[in-house]
Each structure stands twice: as C-alpha cells, then as structure tokens.
C-alpha cells in the first residue's frame, strides 16, 4: 500500500465467497467479518462455486462492496466436476459487463486452491483489495436516488 492510499483513507470492503471444499475444516471457525487497517472483508461459505450466479456478484457490487473475490477449487479438482469452470465463465462474463459500464473489471475476480486456512482466505481478500484500490471506492456506496 502506498503512502497516498493511507492518506486517502480508502479501506476497500471485500466480499469473499469461498467453496467449502477448498478450505481446512477449522477455517469455518474463522469465518466472520474481518477488518484490518488496510481493508475489510466478509467471508461467505458456499457449497460449491457453481452456485455463484452473475446476479449474486453484481448485486453485491450494486449494494456497495468495493470488490468480490470468489475462491474455488483448482482445475479438474471440483467435486461437482465442472462447478469451478462454470463459476469462472460467469465471473469473466460479469467482468465484461463491469468493463462496459466503466465500474472496473478488477472489482471481481477468482482464485483457486485447496486447504486454505482462515488466514489464507483473508490474504486472498487482501489481494482483491489491492486490485481494486486503484479504482477507488465503489461509487454505489451510499447510493441516494433524488
């Protein structure tokens, strides 16, 4: 994080959606809203990343999240066979829309892996926070319709 970021006070709010199969058991105990001095994260467990729909991701952003990170299993290791690939395609499709409306495709991303601890999940949330920092706060934050 640069000195400018610290001075601006922008602390990205990241929603992290993770597949329950790619974390260690005790990671569940860790799941909660977490805040550090650099970003805030809310971690949400899913049965499989195939359950992620574009509408879910876009709604989270429309409600003011600065970024959404989806965490799924590695290629060819999805217990539901193709769930993580479907998630990847939907995320890429939704990123196209974000690019089209000028909100920034980087607000949305996916990471893969297995046996993540709670702390490692937080690091993945921080990775998304780092990606969205150049975009600035989500303009939808505190949306008011006159």
């Amino acid at each position, binding site marked *: 994080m640069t000195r400018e970021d610290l001075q601006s006070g922008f602390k990205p709010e990241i929603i992290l959606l993770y597949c329950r199969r790619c974390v260690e058991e005790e990671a569940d105990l860790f799941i909660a809203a977490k805040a550090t001095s650099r970003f805030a994260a809310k971690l949400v467990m899913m049965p499989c990343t195939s359950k992620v729909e574009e509408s879910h991701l876009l709604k989270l952003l429309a409600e003011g999240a600065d970024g959404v990170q989806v965490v799924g299993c590695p290629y060819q290791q999805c217990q539901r066979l193709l769930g993580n690939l479907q998630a990847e395609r939907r995320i890429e499709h939704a990123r196209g829309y974000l690019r089209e409306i000028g909100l920034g495709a980087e607000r949305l991303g996916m990471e893969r892996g297995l046996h993540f601890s709670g702390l490692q999940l937080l690091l993945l949330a921080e990775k998304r926070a780092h990606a969205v920092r150049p975009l600035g706060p989500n303009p939808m934050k505190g*949306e008011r319709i006159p």
Partner: protein
Amino acid sequence: MIIAEWKPLSELTAKLRGHKKILLVGCATCVAECAAGGEKEVETLAPLLRMALHKEGHPAEVVTRTLERQCEWEFVEELAPLIPQVDAVLSIACGIGIQAVAERYSEVPVYPGVNTTALAIREEPGLWLARCQACGDCGLGETFGICPVARCAKSLQNGPCGGTRKDGKCEVDENLECVWYQIVKRAEARGQLDKLLEFRPAKNWSNSLHGGPKRVLREDLRP
C-alpha cells in the same frame, strides 16, 4: 422458441436516463430458455442498470418482476399494482411481450431491453440457431423436414446455389451447414432423391412478411 439478445447497456441507459423508478420485467418462457429475459437475466440486469445509471449521474431505483408469459393478457395483468409506482418500464421479453405491456399500460413509457432475433432451437448449450421464419406457407413436407427459408442464407427453394463449400458448408458462413446439402443427404438416406425432382408450385409469399400484418381467426373458439 423465440430468441432474443440484450441490447447494449449504453443503449438502455440512454433511454432510461431521467427516470427515477424503473420496472424491469422479464418473461419466464421463450426468452428465459435462451438466457435473455428470464428471472435470472432480470436479476442480473437490474443491478447492472442501477450501477450504470448511477455512474452516469442518473441514479434510479430498479424494481423487478418476471411474468410467466408476457404475451398473455392474464399474466400481463399482474403488473397492474406496480405500474402506478414507476415512471418507466423496461421489458426484456420478446417483441410480442413488450407490445402487450405497452398496450395494457399505455400511460407509462415501455422500452425494449432486447432485440428479438429469430425462431430458433438450442443446438447446444450457449448456441441457438434459427429454424423458422414464420413464412406462413410451410413447405417442410417437401424438403424432408429442413427449412430452406430460415436456414438457407438466400432462402433458396429449389436446390443449392453455386456457393456450397466442398465440406458441405455455406459460402456465407463457414460455421453453417449448406441447408440444401443437408436436404439432399436426408433424401438420399431415405432413398427418395427423386422426390426432390417433383414439381412444386410457387410458394405463397403473401402469407409472409410481405403480405401485411398476419392474423389467425378461429370462429369456433371465439366468445
């Protein structure tokens, strides 16, 4: 099914700018099957529109509803309580559904959110191909169940043009089969190639797009 595609988001926001509360209406039938206008697409487009309009400096509330069929008056009636609360409607049903809503609720502007494209079949996941043009004079019985009106780039009625590629594809699009090549293959497989030599009277195109608005009237079904 009737297939459709979303209009570009910039075209939608250009129409919706200035409206404060928008009703986004989908249809759970054909356009849901082609992933353009069902409940899932309604719930995807709504947050996108909110974000796009906000980004352009025209924030608006977007409420959603998906009707079972937007081309049936009984279902269109379900919108009645919502209409007085909104100042515009965006419909992502086919052109029939959009017109039904616009006719029933003529007091509010109703905008199309999709371009209605064709009558098509889902060939494989994510790919829809036109199969019918509603030409009003079906000749599938003579062409072994394959429609040259909808599926031939030139709508040729009496055999292929000279542009069929060696692999049986269409000269206009290398990804499309030459439909007359398909017809001949099917006739051959049935041992009925000679059927294609039979005289066919000229097609009645007056029932197609050229003959004015179409109607079907069944006195036995009328009230």
